[in-house]
């Protein structure tokens, strides 16, 4: 019962904060920022290697959030709404930086058979592995596997075909597995 009451309390608080933030109440906006910024910066970091750039994109996203707060409909969660804005901002940033490449050739798949190995790699290593992926692989993989977008949604947002989205995901998975295996071999090797 207590966790449920806490959730209800949080919901009421967030609603109150949203109402004030819509009226440009800076304190309310600051509280909302403090509540969601750490998570959103982590999301931006999925796509953008440099942390400073990731923070800049995160601030751009929050600026759009507070500027368009009236457009938020209470159909889904507020965090989900912010997150969608952040992902679009990240895609926009990467497009400005350079053209996002979607390589069609297989990239160095040496051993993709050890699929059952559950690695104990930590989040920092996971992020490092994702950073090494080609841009196209990374975008599709993160949007599909982590954000939960469907292939047709990914295709719309990245301006590619569904087929390209599916193939990029397949290739991303293979490459990641390969690199995880290499990591495991390295770690086992040192023991």
């Amino acid at each position, binding site marked *: 019962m207590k966790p449920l009451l806490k959730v209800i309390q949080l919901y009421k608080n967030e609603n109150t904060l949203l109402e004030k933030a819509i009226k*440009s109440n*800076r304190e309310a*906006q*600051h509280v909302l*920022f*403090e509540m969601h*910024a*750490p*998570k959103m*910066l*982590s999301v931006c*970091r*999925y796509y953008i290697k440099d*942390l400073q750039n990731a*923070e800049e994109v*995160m*601030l751009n996203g*929050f*600026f759009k959030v*507070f*500027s368009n707060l009236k457009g938020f409909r209470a159909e889904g969660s507020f965090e989900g709404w912010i997150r969608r804005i952040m992902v679009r901002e990240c895609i926009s940033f990467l497009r400005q930086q350079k053209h996002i490449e979607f390589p069609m050739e297989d990239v160095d798949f040496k051993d993709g058979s050890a*699929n*059952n190995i*559950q*690695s104990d790699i*930590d*989040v920092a290593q*996971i*992020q490092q592995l994702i950073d090494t992926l080609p841009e196209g692989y990374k975008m599709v993989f993160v949007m599909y*596997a*982590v954000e939960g977008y469907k292939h047709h949604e990914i295709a719309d947002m990245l301006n590619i075909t569904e087929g390209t989205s599916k193939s990029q995901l397949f290739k991303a*998975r293979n490459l*990641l*597995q390969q690199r*995880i295996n290499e990591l495991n071999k390295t770690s086992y090797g040192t023991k």
Partner: protein
Amino acid sequence: MAPNNIEESIKNKLEQRTIQPSADAWTKLESRLDATDKNYKNKTFFWIGLAASIVGILLIASQFFNEVPLEKHTPVLVVTPEVIEQNNHTEVAVEKSNVEELINGQENSTDAIQTAQVAAKTTGTSEIKPEAIVALTNDVEIANNSFQEQEAPPVELQAQNLSFEEQQIQQVIAQVRILKDHDKTISDADLEALLAQAQQDIIQEKLYRKNTGIVDARTLLQDVEDDLDRTFRDKVFEALKANFNFVKTAVAQRND
């Protein structure tokens, strides 16, 4: 299924992560939001100012156009004296209808008299020669008596059915007719005096009705207030004038 296990693991670990923004992150965002709000307020003030200006222009224009109808009353008075040229019993009936038009066109007959006074002024010149004009008040009274003797029967018959205001108006018209007969000219000031006298008589009649011997308190108060206002206004103007001269003199002396 394996890729899903790995992906599930990757997803869970990444989703648990949070990264604390830099210390000045909120400050940067706040300054951007403040700049946007300022721009929004400036734009809002601009549009409000524009709307207010348009409303002001429309009000001024409507005031300007509202002044036009006043001129429409001028022909009414000008037409009536022309009718006096005909020395006929039917004149009285025609004058009565004209008078009724005047009365009906106004809230009360005192306004009709005032309108006539304004109309006399706005006609500008004293080109009322074709219509009969009164020379002097004394002459008017004598002429009035003589006129009344001449036209007594029909006027008396009508007077019983006319109100006091209508009687006054008829009297004015009659005086004008006499002057026309005497072929004399009169200035606008004299005409105004004639009309003012008629107005005063009407007000006095309202105050104290000779028939019933009742004094109308409300009208009396109104009349006193008007006098007071006039007196007060004159006093204020005089005081301002005196003080202005005093200040002017003092400044001139100081500058010397």
